[in-house]
């Protein structure tokens, strides 16, 4: 977020805080240490990151609230501050509006969301940086279960890195209509992205409900091409989830989904997921691909659990697995141990070059 906007919002915050000076502002958040070992090309690299997440709980006025959430990360590459939330929300009789840095994601419970405002904003239950954007958002409730959300996200480009001069390139807009019919949660989304020169307009539909003892969800996305030489894009998703109590006491949760998408969208997804353009490392000869995403979670007791996340390319049978162990230690400290393993050495999608073996330890304390 640029400095001017930050200063403006800081002033607004100070004004609001001074108006509610008698009220109590609470601070909460999390302190954590993250250490990773990455094994790549017979070499190991060690990373250590300290992070501090701060949330300000500012008392709401009758019709307005302010959200402030930021994160400081410090590692061998330097210190980075990211505002995840810095927005003001005001309620009116028939709608509410929020302005500033805020999370925008049109989640419906899937592990990968092809109909999101920003594709890849949330992957495998982890929020990505694409989720937190500078936007104006209006929510119009229709009834208790239905509403329309309109998002306007100005797209700015740094044209001079030294002076940080920005160029306004256009506004990405989106509309999401959501309701429930016959106990199925339904949403219809439309996005217009002026920066996407190939496919400016995108429509998506999502559904979530129960099918007997199973949870069922599905999504379809269609992107219309603006050029005759470029094809339209479709993404299809189908998922199921299920939970069971074993031996009266132990709980298992299973979730799995299949996503059918083109090689172009697969590259886009991979770049977002791996935060790197790996196009040269991929042999994507087929037109369409099937990705499999899954999660198995087992509760050992009230304080600890094991999870296994899986993300794979069915076409070339390559998979990345993330086993994870979580434990809440005495003193309100969380321990998470995880690893990422790719199954293939070849130029498959999830190969060990794209997804090197890594082991990660995280300790965090919530306050």
């Amino acid at each position, binding site marked *: 977020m640029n400095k001017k906007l930050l200063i403006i919002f800081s002033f607004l915050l100070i004004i609001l805080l001074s108006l509610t000076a008698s009220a109590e502002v609470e601070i909460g958040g999390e302190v954590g240490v993250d250490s990773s070992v990455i094994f790549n090309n017979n070499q190991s690299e060690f990373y250590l990151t300290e992070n501090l997440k701060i949330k300000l709980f500012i008392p709401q006025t009758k019709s307005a609230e302010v959200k402030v959430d930021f994160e400081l990360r410090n590692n061998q590459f330097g210190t980075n501050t990211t505002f995840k939330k810095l927005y003001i929300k005001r309620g009116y009789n028939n709608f509410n509006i929020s302005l500033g840095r805020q999370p925008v*994601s049109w989640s419906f419970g899937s592990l990968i969301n092809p109909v999101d405002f920003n594709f890849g904003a949330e992957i495998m239950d982890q929020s990505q940086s694409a989720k937190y954007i500078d936007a104006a958002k209006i929510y119009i409730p229709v009834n*208790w279960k239905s509403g329309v959300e309109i998002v306007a996200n100005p797209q700015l480009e740094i044209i001079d890195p030294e002076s940080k001069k920005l160029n306004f390139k256009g506004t990405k807009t989106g509309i999401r209509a959501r309701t429930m019919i016959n106990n199925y*949660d339904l949403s219809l989304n439309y996005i217009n992205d002026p920066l996407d020169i190939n496919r400016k307009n995108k429509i998506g539909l999502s559904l979530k409900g129960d099918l007997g*003892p199973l*949870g069922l969800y599905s999504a379809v996305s269609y992107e219309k091409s603006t050029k005759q030489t470029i094809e339209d894009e479709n993404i299809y998703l189908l998922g199921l989830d299920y939970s069971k109590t074993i031996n009266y006491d132990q709980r298992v949760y299973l979730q799995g989904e299949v996503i059918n998408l083109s090689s172009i969208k697969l590259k886009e997804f991979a770049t977002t997921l791996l935060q790197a353009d790996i196009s040269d490392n991929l042999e994507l000869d087929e037109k369409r691909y099937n990705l499999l995403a899954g999660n198995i979670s087992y509760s050992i007791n009230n304080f600890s659990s094991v999870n296994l996340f899986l993300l794979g390319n069915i076409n070339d049978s390559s998979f990345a697995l993330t086993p994870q162990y979580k434990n809440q230690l005495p003193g309100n400290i969380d321990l998470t141990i995880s690893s990422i393993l790719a199954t293939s050495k070849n130029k498959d999608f999830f190969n060990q070059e794209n997804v090197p073996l890594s082991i990660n330890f995280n300790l965090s304390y919530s306050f």
Partner: protein
Amino acid sequence: MNTNKLTKIDFNMKLITSFLIMIFCLIFFSQNMMAITAEEIINKRDENEYIESARIEAKMIITNSGREMTKEMVSISKGEDAFVEFTNSRDRGTKYLKKGDNLWMFFPDAEDVVKISGHMMNQGMMGSDFSYQDIMESTKMTELYNFELIGEGEYNNRTCYILEATAVEGKEVSYYRRKIWIDKERFIALKEELYAQSGRLLKVSEVKEVDEFEGRYYPVISIMENKLRENTSTEFIVEKIEFNPEIDESIFTLENLQ
């Protein structure tokens, strides 16, 4: 013996017999008239414990082998609708909305509202021994179970009716059978043994403290002990309760969840 004397003795005998029969009848019928049925006991219990609408501030302390985890929440319920918001530091801002048979969850970091699948209703809420169904259930016990009065007993120096409850066929319940100790004077369930269909004892719920609210008794401290694991329990403490407050319908909306 002369005839008059015999007649007198005979009359006295008849009088005594009639008197004894009358006393016997009085005792027999009065006992029957005063005998209370299982349904009446449960209905009286529901008058105390069944909530039409309420605002509750509560705490759950989850204990496992010496380790403790505390969840604090505010719950607003009206009929079949319930809204729960967690206020402890770890889960602050996490909210649930139950409307009829549907459950939604709000994830505060991502600001996502997600509909929760129906099969999750029987799973532990936020890692506790209370399921979503236990915390947010609004149906009366008499609609879910068939009750039988099996005796009387004592629990914590209080005389109790002991009832056995078996799930009504076709009804989805967390526990197939329950054995319940209901305080004879206050009509509060002081202890419940919760069984699986196989007969295995799963949990025991015990009330540690009862308070009176405008003539109505309500358990304010109760402990649910997991009998399948040693030293595992969840204590549920009601810190503040307001019965039948004025509740705006806008509380039970997806907009309020965000």
